[in-house]
């Protein structure tokens, strides 16, 4: 009789969560989208082990993770933030499939650059889905809780053929350039605020998380006083709270919000935001409406 393969968490790292491509079609119930913050890295890790893009991976934060394979060998791959990968203490490949024999430990080391590494295993992390997704949602508290030492994660059986090569991924940014399409509430700000945005220098604030990338820098001036009634929010929305510092909504963003959105960052620029460490310079690059 064979036991199904599983990963046992030896060292969870500062924050490691299960993530896939997130929840769709439930925002009207107040359920955030969640999902991998760096989708290209998540997808690449899955491709390397032969998974579909929607298979769940582990998303680490700065400090990596150590897991042990149980019940059978596991084919694993690490992408995203560059880091040392070790198998039972010996150097192993980053960005390539690594076979982890039953009983062996795979260590994803601290990020050498960037923030979030992705660990995929062939068959995917097979925790039960909630509302169509296995993603942990740190705003709404849906899906599996952040991992703790001793957690046992079932590994699924469904997979295809692994891809031999890693498609090149963008390096973590030295400067985060965020293109910004104006609206829907750009008219709530002083004239020229949007046009003059590229002159301002911001930095990624330490309070950034899966919900939002927060910035430090010059305050934007509101032209319309008073409050905006709550309205629906999208991924990449740049909300401006009363302190005037732009806040970029990431995957765990609330479904509605009451601060005006000056513009929206295209989805293609968000993986870099997911890998930008606190202190990284941020520049907004306005697009036409």
């Amino acid at each position: 009789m064979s036991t199904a393969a599983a990963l046992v968490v030896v060292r969870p790292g500062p924050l490691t969560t299960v993530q896939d491509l997130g929840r769709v079609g439930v925002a009207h119930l107040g359920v955030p989208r969640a999902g991998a913050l760096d989708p290209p890295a998540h997808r690449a890790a899955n491709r390397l082990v032969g998974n579909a893009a929607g298979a769940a991976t582990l998303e680490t934060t700065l400090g990596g993770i150590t897991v042990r394979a149980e019940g059978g060998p596991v084919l694993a791959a690490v992408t995203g933030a560059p880091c040392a990968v070790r198998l039972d203490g010996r150097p192993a490949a980053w960005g390539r499939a690594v076979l982890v024999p039953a009983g062996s430990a795979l260590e994803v080391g601290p990020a050498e650059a960037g923030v979030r590494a992705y660990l995929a295993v062939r068959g995917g992390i097979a925790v039960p889905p909630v509302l169509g997704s296995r993603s942990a949602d740190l705003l709404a508290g849906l899906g599996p809780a952040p991992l703790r030492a001793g957690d046992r994660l079932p590994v699924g059986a469904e997979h295809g053929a692994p891809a031999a090569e890693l498609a090149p991924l963008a390096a973590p940014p030295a400067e985060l350039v965020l293109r910004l399409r104006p609206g829907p509430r750009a008219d709530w700000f002083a004239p020229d605020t949007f046009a003059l945005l590229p002159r301002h220098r911001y930095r990624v604030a330490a309070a950034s998380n899966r919900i939002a990338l927060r910035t430090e820098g010059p305050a934007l001036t509101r032209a319309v006083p008073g409050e905006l009634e709550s309205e629906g929010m999208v991924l990449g929305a740049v909300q401006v709270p009363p302190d005037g510092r732009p806040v970029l909504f990431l995957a765990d963003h609330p479904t509605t919000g009451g601060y005006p959105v000056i513009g929206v960052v295209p989805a293609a620029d968000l993986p870099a935001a997911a890998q930008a460490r606190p202190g990284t310079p941020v520049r907004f690059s306005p697009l036409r409406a």
Partner: protein
Amino acid sequence: MVTVRRVGEAGLLLEAADPAALYRRLLAERATGALGEVAEIVPAARTVLLDGVADPGRVARLVAAWTVTAAALADGPLVELPVVYDGADLAEVAGHWGVSVARAVELHSGIEYRVAFCGFLPGFGYLTGLPEQLHVPRRATPRPAVPAGSVAVAGPYTGVYPRSSPGGWQLLGRTPAVLWDADRDPAALLAPGTRVRFVEVA
């Protein structure tokens, strides 16, 4: 008339005099395929957001030409929630309303509400229907933990906390109803459009 604002690459923020009627119309039009692919339809206080729209330019032109009237508002399902009216702020709310506690309970449970939209927490519905003279401010200092099932009022809304969370609404009572269960279908007891009555129980 529907005002349309673009939201990024694939979103549209729509504003109409009656957002509940606009939401209904959007659901009906999506069901016929008239909107093409739309991932999310998110009603809020005055607006409805469309997100993940495959052809936002076409949908923007289509929707801008609509006339949305309250007549388009069909009746949603009715949910009755049993409530023990023993909330920590009940006397204070009765004071705001200028009535006795017993009368405050009669007033709150005598109205048929409608879920205008959800937000804040999964399954937290913002229920409209309170007449303007019963609108009360939020608490000056939010509570760090409001128990699950708490029935509360703030501004033009009443609602029920689906789970324990920080909160600044005024607490009138509690319901044993399970507002949110991710393993249940539907997970949310109160979805936009649902009609709600609160029924006093001892």
